[in-house]
């Protein structure tokens, strides 16, 4: 367990604009906390745009970037390094203590440049937004991967994509190893296994005929489809039902049957592990076939239902899953957790199957309030917040991957998903990160507005035609030249509206943030105070932020 400790907050190192500057101490506190958090990389902001009516992480919603809040910070660099290792661009896995400083190492820059080259993007060795997006599309389970994007003009898939295929095959137990530095092509036997796995789940109709790689890969990169199909898996049909007529044919059929059965079981075990990982557990994704699957009783080393199998992490998290996330009693939970069943996959798609139905629809920002209440009820809130920080920082890819799944449960009113794995810390840290991004954006937009105010005129697309000057007391004078036409006037109108909106909503964000900081920190100190305030103000910040995002 990592020590629940936040970095030291030393207010003395920041200059507080205080009363002598015309500001009160609360403003100074907010200003210093935010600057300090930014300069020390306390929180990384997920760069997501909250489109109108969308909930972050909501299935089916495109995650986009916020203009102006582009800087990737330490958490992201660490995650990118791990993702590049998974794709085979690093020989060794980055250590748990690696920091954002990794970005400055030649090894990292070389790996990034090689990835960029193999992914068909601009090669500069810098892990910016484009690289982050490309790596995520290949490695994250919940990010949409468009097949067409990864094909070169000659119809061959980019090597970075081929690496991602091999990685996913390995994660699902269909390849012996993940891609390494010398990776080039996906071994054909791995693709044969994939075909058999998909055939065994009735996703494709045959495995011994040609199927386009594009079709196979598009299924492989669609975990929702795989899980939905796994919800109805059955034992493989008995052999001898085909057209074989010789004894040799029958033996071959039997061997084929065993081979498919083994692949199917291995695939289901690892699909279950992956889903448990995405839901928030610490389970290792390792491709191992180490857990019983209902109805697929081929003996393995250690034997079916062996002690060795039930001692695994899979056993631990399956039991936690059924105990915490279903209405089952202890006995039933234990019984169900003894093997991987179709009901597990069905419940992942439809949690209502194993939970109380008819629950009220739940809203993400409302949930932030509940989370705050839960933290404040804890005997030592400061320690809990500090632990959320430490655990949150250690989540790596899970900070971005798996959220759609967790959110799908919360939206259905099944809040107990938060009690699974480390989700409570994940949720708190995520809200704090997002709140931080919003407040930073608020300050940035306010500063941009102030630039125009100080310049004494609003930015216009054609200021030879129309000029809008702004006086110190925020009165306007509009100067329309004889040369102006209606398009100039409409453009000027939009500029004026944009300025007023940006000013209003950024002020709202800053005002609310400062207000909460001043009145509702609940005796917390240092960074813990900032984190709590960000989560606490999240719900109220969202409406102003959405308005702001329509303008910038």
């Amino acid at each position: 367990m990592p020590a629940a400790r936040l970095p030291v907050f030393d207010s003395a190192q920041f200059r507080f604009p205080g009363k002598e500057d015309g500001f009160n101490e609360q403003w100074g506190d907010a200003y210093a906390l935010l600057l300090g958090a930014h300069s020390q990389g306390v929180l990384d902001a997920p760069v997501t745009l909250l489109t109108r009516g969308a909930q972050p992480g909501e299935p089916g919603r495109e995650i986009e970037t916020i203009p102006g809040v582009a800087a990737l910070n330490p958490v992201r660099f660490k995650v990118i390094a791990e993702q590049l290792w998974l794709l085979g661009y690093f020989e060794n896995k980055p250590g748990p203590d690696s920091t954002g400083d990794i970005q400055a190492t030649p090894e990292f820059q070389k790996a990034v440049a090689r990835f960029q080259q193999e992914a068909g993007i601009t090669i500069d060795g810098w892990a910016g937004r484009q690289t982050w997006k490309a790596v995520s599309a290949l490695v994250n389970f919940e990010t949409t991967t468009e097949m067409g994007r990864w094909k070169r003009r000659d119809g061959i898939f980019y090597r970075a994509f081929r690496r991602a295929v091999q990685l996913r095959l390995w994660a699902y137990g269909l390849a012996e190893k993940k891609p390494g530095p010398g990776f080039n092509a996906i071994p054909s036997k791995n693709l044969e296994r994939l075909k058999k796995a998909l055939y065994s789940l009735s996703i494709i109709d045959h495995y011994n005929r040609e199927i386009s790689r594009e079709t196979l890969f598009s299924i492989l990169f669609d975990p929702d489809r795989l899980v939905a199909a796994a919800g109805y898996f059955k034992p493989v049909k008995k052999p001898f039902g085909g057209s074989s007529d010789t004894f040799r044919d029958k033996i071959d059929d039997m061997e084929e049957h065993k081979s498919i059965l083994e692949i199917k079981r291995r695939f289901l075990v690892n699909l279950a592990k992956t889903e448990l990982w995405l839901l928030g557990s610490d389970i290792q994704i390792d491709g191992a076939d180490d857990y019983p699957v209902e109805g697929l009783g081929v003996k393995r080393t250690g034997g079916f239902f062996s002690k060795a199998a039930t001692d695994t992490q899979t056993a631990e998290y399956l039991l936690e899953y059924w105990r915490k996330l279903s209405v089952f009693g202890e006995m039933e939970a234990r019984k169900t957790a003894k093997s991987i069943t179709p009901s597990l996959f069905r419940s992942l798609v439809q949690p209502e199957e194993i939970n109380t139905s008819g629950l009220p629809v739940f809203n993400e920002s409302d949930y932030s309030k509940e989370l705050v209440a839960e933290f404040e009820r804890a005997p030592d809130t400061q320690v809990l917040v500090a632990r959320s920080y430490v655990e949150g920082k250690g989540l790596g890819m899970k900070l971005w991957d798996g959220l759609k799944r967790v959110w799908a449960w919360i939206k259905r009113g099944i809040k107990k998903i938060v009690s699974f794995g480390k989700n409570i810390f994940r949720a708190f840290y995520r809200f704090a990160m997002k709140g931080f991004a919003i407040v930073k954006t608020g300050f940035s937009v306010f500063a941009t507005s102030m630039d125009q105010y100080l310049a004494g005129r609003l930015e216009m697309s054609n200021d030879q035609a129309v000029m809008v000057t702004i006086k110190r007391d925020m009165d306007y004078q509009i100067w329309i030249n004889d040369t102006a036409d209606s398009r100039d006037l409409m453009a000027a109108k939009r500029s004026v509206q944009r300025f007023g909106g940006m000013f209003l909503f950024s002020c709202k964000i800053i005002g609310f943030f400062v207000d909460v900081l001043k009145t509702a920190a609940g005796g917390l100190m240092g960074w813990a105070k900032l984190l709590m305030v960000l989560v606490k103000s999240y719900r109220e910040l969202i409406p102003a932020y959405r308005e702001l995002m329509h303008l910038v």
Partner: protein
Amino acid sequence: LEEKMGLKDALDKLNNAIDDLTSLHVQTFTGKVTFAREGKTFDDVRTAIETAQGESKISLVAESVFKFDGDSYNFVTSQEGGVPSSALELHKASIDSGIKTRQGLMQMVKGVFD
């Protein structure tokens, strides 16, 4: 961010302006003003406008004053066919924008200066 948040001067100025925000005044002028495209500063703009005013090249075509005690004053010229509708829309948008800036300041002051 630090650079962006280096707002002290702006906020000082704004802080001093808050006393004057009890009214909103928007004026729209039309006419012939030429601004040099290169090396243009706000003072250059101001000079160009003042020069144009002095030479009677520009004229006030719309004016609105709103006082927060409820008084208001609106003027729209009727000379030479009045004001083009798109210019009036710009004038109205500026009033709305001016109201928003005041609302924004109220929101921020609520948090910062309470």
